[in-house]
């Protein structure tokens, strides 16, 4: 990383320059950036970066930020260890 790099997504270490580069390449929606860069897919699930990226998309498209889709938000809201899921399976309810 260069010293001037601005980290937007801390979980996946994605910089503002990278976001802008991929928007310029035509990845003009949050979900598209998510799939190519993994922004919003790390431990914080986009709590840190989504807002900043939506504003960046708004700036590049000229559309107001309220009309930019924040993408599909699915469970879980935070990482779940696979071990927890495996151990949970098959146990009786109480």
């Amino acid at each position, binding site marked *: 990383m260069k*010293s001037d790099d601005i980290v937007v997504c801390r979980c996946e270490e994605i910089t503002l320059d990278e976001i802008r580069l991929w928007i310029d390449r035509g990845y003009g929606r949050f979900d598209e950036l998510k799939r190519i860069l993994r922004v919003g897919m790390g431990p914080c699930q986009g*709590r840190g970066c989504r*807002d900043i990226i939506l504003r960046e998309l708004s700036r590049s498209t000229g559309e107001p930020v309220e009309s930019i889709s924040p993408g599909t938000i*699915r*469970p879980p*809201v*935070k990482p779940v260890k696979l071990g927890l899921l495996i151990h949970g399976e098959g146990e009786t*309810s109480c």
Partner: protein
Amino acid sequence: MRRIETDVLVAGGGPAGLSAAIEAAGAGAQVVIAESGFHVGGQLVKQSHKFFGSKDEYAGTRGVKIAEALNDEVSQYGDRVKIMLDTTISGYYGEEGIVTAMVGEEEYFHIVPKRIIIATGAQERLIPFPNNDMPGVYGAGAVQTLMNTYGVIPGRRVLMVGAGNIGLIVSYQLMQAGVEVAAVLEAAQRIGGYWVHAAKIRRLGIPILLRHSIKRAVGERVVEGAEICELDGSFNPIGEPKEVECDIICMAVGLTPTNELLWQAGCKMKYVPFLCGHVPLRDMEMRTSNENIWVAGDASGIEEASTAMIEGRIAGIGAARSLGFVVDEIRLDEFQTRLRNLRAGDAGEKIRTGVAAVTI
């Protein structure tokens, strides 16, 4: 896998969630409060200052005492309210009628609620600048938690970014804790918070620099200073940047609703700038477009603890009534009146406009 059934699940044990639980339990419902932190009371717990506003909403009382009062009220209902700490609602699966929950990172289980009140609060906004990922860059809320909850000062000399109430209050509390505050920066042309908070820190000699923002954090491996710059009326930097010596940069640039569960549950959402983000459409009783889900507090739009508590009470009554419990309609009307009163006047205009845009 453990499976808990309940009438009402309240996601979040802050002022809105506790208030919702009190009303729902008061009407006779079984309630589970899932709180991701280690204590209930949410942000109230670290508010060492006295609140303003209406006496009905604890004006003159310190936030931490309000949390205790709400907790006492919850405990009156005994087993009817089950508080689960360190518990995060991680997913909503409507077709199965379940939500998934995690205790720390150690247990994963199911809750089967008849109704859900989402009172997940807010998260801190960040702004991008070079080196914003360097140790020493904090959210103001995090600094407040460190100091007021854990008794740890963040550093020696702080640059505060943002002169809203949080920036002003945390600056004052930093001074009280013996930490120097180099300056408070505010991008807008005027102070966003209450004048009384601004006056307190001005009396202590802390400069509040309007139309100023941070340009970059300076340092090798940790923050050693910050470059700040003046802004023109369109928020573009003007003039030469100045360097401020500090070891902590504290960001108080606003909050945004914590809304993942609402999205997951398919609630109709709308971006409302006056409410600081995407919030669900709701009726007068805080019921969202998903008929099993209510919302209250900052998750429904960034406002204050006082309004969060009333919204919580309204949501709690609404959720209980929908389950067939008999509720006190006069009491509900009183809460609606109190909510209107809190939002009255010039100060409440933006909130009134924002709320009107999402109230069906």
